[in-house]
């Protein structure tokens, strides 16, 4: 199958020039965008899980021609952070940090990696650049994006210098709802030597929306990138959260939580590439699906030939609350260096009838018992979240969705 969508039929070079021009971008950025636009023709959709006789997520079915409205992007955005760090809008970053952008933009997520990254690169009109100078500890960087248009293409770059740290909380929601909306986000994180990045994100877009997001980081020596990703909104989400452990002794953690109901569809990838010595990765995802929702999880731990003394762990658990929901999980371990300690597991199950009986026999009504079990199911993931605000918000959204049930 090739990229058979006709989106480029109504996309023009002029539109891309207008977006870039409005942002006052230098020539090299415009060129990158135009090349991405041109490449659309030859690019495929991102890979999705296939099980015999079934392709779980069919991105080709999306009607991009009607979803994408490049010149009418509208949003409500907050970008705040402490004074010591630079938290800039894309337009400001273009003016103040061109060299930084030149060095990092597109260096971690290849703009032409697939059809959707290229589309995002060609059309993004908003974004955030977070630059943390050497030795600075920046807490409470918050980015809030409220989508008010049919489509919104967003870009985020995080660069941390040596021995700095930053805690980022990103949230996406929908302001003005439309029947169908498309949100696209590309996030690149370059974690400098001995720096620490925690990047939390909470996606709570309208349940009519489609969402495509790639978040990828690269670590220098002794650097750590911790990702937390909560997915509650959209009718279809395709995301990847990943880290390339490029520096010796670097670490990453990828924590995920999702809760699908109605006819929501989540296709979630967590990936780590061990490309240096003494690196550690911990992938933990838990999700609930209900009604006729579906989830597909693919987790990859790839240990390269030079990755001596690797530690790599992966766990994924999906809890189905209804008989009609469907889940598939594929944890993969690719080991090319045998000096590796690794584990991977995935489970898909339902609420345990014995657990439920234990609780109801003590007087708890079945509904409360089930809710307690579901909330308890998320606890191992919630416990990994350092940012109180993110944990509380996630807990609250999970609780609210549970109480919505009869």
């Amino acid at each position, binding site marked *: 199958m090739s990229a058979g969508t006709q989106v480029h039929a109504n996309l023009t070079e002029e539109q891309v020039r207008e977006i870039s021009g409005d942002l006052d971008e230098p020539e090299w950025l415009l060129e990158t965008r135009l090349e991405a636009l041109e490449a659309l023709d030859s690019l495929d959709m991102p890979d999705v899980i296939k099980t015999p006789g079934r392709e779980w997520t069919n991105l080709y079915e999306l009607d991009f021609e009607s979803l994408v409205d490049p010149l009418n992007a509208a949003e409500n955005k907050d970008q705040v952070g402490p004074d010591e760090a630079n938290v800039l809008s894309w337009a400001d970053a273009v003016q103040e940090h061109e060299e930084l952008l030149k060095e990092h933009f597109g260096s971690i997520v290849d703009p032409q990696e697939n059809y959707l990254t290229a589309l995002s690169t060609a059309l993004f009109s908003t974004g955030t650049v977070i630059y943390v100078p050497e030795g600075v500890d920046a807490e409470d960087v918050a980015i809030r994006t409220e989508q008010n248009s049919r489509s919104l293409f967003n870009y985020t770059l995080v660069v941390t210098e040596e021995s700095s740290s930053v805690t980022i909380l990103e949230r996406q929601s929908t302001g003005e709802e439309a029947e169908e909306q498309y949100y696209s986000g590309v996030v690149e994180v370059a974690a400098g030597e001995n720096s620490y990045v925690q990047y939390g994100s909470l996606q709570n877009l309208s349940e009519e929306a489609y969402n495509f997001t790639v978040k990828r980081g690269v670590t220098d020596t002794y650097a750590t990138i911790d990702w937390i990703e909560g997915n509650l909104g959209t009718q279809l989400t395709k995301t990847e959260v990943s880290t390339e452990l490029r520096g010796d002794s670097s670490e990453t953690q990828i924590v995920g939580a999702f809760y699908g109901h109605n006819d929501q569809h989540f296709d979630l990838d967590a990936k780590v590439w061990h490309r240096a010595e003494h690196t550690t990765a911990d992938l933990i995802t838990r999700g609930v699906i209900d009604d006729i929702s579906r989830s597909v999880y693919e987790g990859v731990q790839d240990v390269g030939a030079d990755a001596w003394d690797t530690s790599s762990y992966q766990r994924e658990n999906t809890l189905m609350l209804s008989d009609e929901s469907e889940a598939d999980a594929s944890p993969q371990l690719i080991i090319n260096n045998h000096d590796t300690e690794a584990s991977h597991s995935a489970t898909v199950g339902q609420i345990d009838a*014995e657990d439920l009986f234990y609780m109801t026999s003590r*007087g708890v009504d079945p509904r409360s018992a089930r809710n307690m079990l579901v909330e308890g199911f998320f*606890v191992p993931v919630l416990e990994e979240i350092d940012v109180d605000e993110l944990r509380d918000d996630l807990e609250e959204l999970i609780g609210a969705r549970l109480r919505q049930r009869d």
Partner: protein
Amino acid sequence: MARLELSNLHAEVAEGDEKILEGVDLEVESGEIHALMGPNGSGKSTTAKVIAGHPAYEVTEGEVLLHLEDEEFGEDIEIDEDQRTWNLLDLEPNERAALGIFLGFQYPAEIEGVTMTNFLRTALNAKIEEREELFEDEDGDEAEEEEDEGFESSPMEGPADEGEVGVAEFQGILQEKMEQLEMDEKFAQRYLNAGFSGGEKKQNEVLQAAILEPSIAVLDEIDSGLDIDRLQDVSNGINALRDEQGTGILQITHYQRILDYVEPDHVHVMLDGQIAKSGGPELAEKLEDKGYDWVREDVYGTA
């Protein structure tokens, strides 16, 4: 006073038609201790689960009745004449719990992410609330009026949410009961049975009974796998239930050992899904000496 009455109880596994109970007759009253003994597969655990309402079993014949006297649940709850007898088989497990039935599990569930404190306070409040609903006066809700005072919980202890027993008050109750059972207070913040040793789980079952104050407690092999110290703690807890709360105990056991610490008023032997023989404490001792074949021989005239 309360009385649990099983009469001619027949039950089978819900999926399949394997008969397990074939006419059980048994009565347990408040303040009494009954030991229910018998070989593996005789139907003891099934009896316990059917009393509590386990969904895996289907009752095909007979009754499980609970008879209550007025003031079984204190002065606040008035039990009308026509609300004194309940057919438990018509009720959900949580409704049975609200009426004072407690099942101590042979294999308590391990529940990750739910703390003991949170679970037990929820259970206690749910029980009180359900009880009010079951005995609700048709003319109006009397229980409602006195509810508004109660404890306010401090902001440090989580949300001051609904429920008759507030967080602070509950902490007090829990602490007191844990001290009585010589349980480490750190258990309160641990997840329900998760990572508990076998003995700790059993002790935790007795603790939960102490807090929920049942009228009738069915304890399914609460003594299995306990070392002698813990057996004594658990036995003290069971005796306290009977002595302080007047709970009627139906103790299912394989072993004579616990009966040295929890002396039964009545001993029943179960064989092939029926109560084959009943007697006093001496029956247990005789079983210890002679085994179940002796009962079989005695009852059926064949071994």
